[in-house]
């Protein structure tokens, strides 16, 4: 693999990709067409994968593409296409019969709260040096070792959760 540690304009690439990622995320939210929204989300995942690459985390980057862009979003698209979701009309959901209407008015509040929390976390964390090559997720062995030693319980619990969700989905689908 060619040595990219001294890649020029790394900062520039980082800012460009980040800006694009944020732009894609915004476009996803603002897009009325469900398929277009899904596509913007895929683009966002791809750009985030590039950010991982800039962190020399090629493993995480590829996994990001395979799992999120390659598997999850394909299923999303699949469902959208099967159900033939029409363009969202914001007026159609507003009506007295909409029980979630009152809950919906809380959404901006919750969103602001989330944003605040994120900002707090982001400001609190010390920025790692941009060229530090010693990050633990640099290669597969390190990731594997960490997963099966330090983070064994969270890892196993997560997999158990997914298993439960999967079985639950199967049971629900069968009952119909």
């Amino acid at each position: 693999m060619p040595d990219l540690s001294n890649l020029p304009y790394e900062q520039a690439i980082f800012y460009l990709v980040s800006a694009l990622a944020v732009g894609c995320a915004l476009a996803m939210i603002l897009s009325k067409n469900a398929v277009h929204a899904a596509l913007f989300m895929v683009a966002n995942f791809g750009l985030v994968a590039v950010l991982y690459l800039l962190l020399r985390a090629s493993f995480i980057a590829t996994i990001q593409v395979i799992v999120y862009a390659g598997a999850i979003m394909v299923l999303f698209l699949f469902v959208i296409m099967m159900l033939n979701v029409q363009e969202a009309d914001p007026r159609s959901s507003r009506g007295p019969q909409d029980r979630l209407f009152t809950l919906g008015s809380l959404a901006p509040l919750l969103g602001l709260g989330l944003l605040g929390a994120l900002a707090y976390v982001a400001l609190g964390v010390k920025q790692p040096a941009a060229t530090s090559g010693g990050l633990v997720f640099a290669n597969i062995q390190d990731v594997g070792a960490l997963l099966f030693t330090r983070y064994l319980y969270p890892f196993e619990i997560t997999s158990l959760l997914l298993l439960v969700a999967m079985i639950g989905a199967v049971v629900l689908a069968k009952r119909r």
Partner: protein
Amino acid sequence: MSEDILLIVIKVAVLIVILLTVVAYTVYVERRIMARMQSRIGPNRVGPFGLLQPLADILKLIFKEDLTPAGADKVTYFLAPALAAITGLAAFAVIPFGNTIDLFGIKVNLFIADINVGLLYLFAMSSLAVYGIVLAGWSSNNKYSLLGGVRSSAQMISYELPLGLALVSVVLAAGSLSLGDIVKAQANLWFIVQQPLSFVIYFICAIAETNRAPFDLPEAETELIAGYHTEYSSLKWALFFLAEYMAVITVSATAVTIFFGGWQGPFLPGWLWFVIKLSGFIFFFTWMRATLPRLRFDQLMRLGWKVLLPLAALNLVVIAGLVAAMGG
């Protein structure tokens, strides 16, 4: 530093030109072989032995009218063939197709990038290849295209799992995800000898991934007209064509790299061995296309989920046990 980048750019450019030519002549060779199998002659009018036929075809495709259906989603309709072709070409970047050669005093490695997660990168590209097909099916605003797109996404997702599991068992034995390392691990014994079951599972899944006979359901002509690319014409259609044959070449090259010792072989230069092995696979693909009827969709899904996936999982467990037992 900048020389490195220049070298990479040159290599990418050369590789793309070579790949496009190879795709064009794969089509030609396929038509000739299939014609022989069907007691026909095949294209033999353009140039000696019809060797200029691919050129004529490409020219014809360029000059064809480029249609966009009235109800199509224009942007997506335009994007889909590009996505299909890009993922098809990009996948080849990690495949080592020869040993290091000396060219004008510069040592040139015959691969674009030997990244340490090469195999995963191949997966990533093949999983992205679904988008081209799905989006083409959706954006054409045609029921046949839609059904073709839905079918292919279901098919590719289903067969990626056993395909991945089959390859993971090789990775366990080789101890690396880098394709270069996997090739070097086969210096003495090819993995086809060591793990024949992995190869069989991989190859069946690879056929399904590339939508070729007998798993060519997304473009089943007799049911869905041409499936996802029913509405496409001209160069957009050519890009789908390119993507399909690129996929065939890529899965064949992957099979050569992972199971058949890659470019290694006695006497002849490495890249020639690679080409010979690759041709064998392409011939096999052609042979199957000329021979086998097509499975029905539910039969295809049943094969994937109820036969190949358990088999691949079992295979993985057995091989992991063996590797652990031998202290690998």
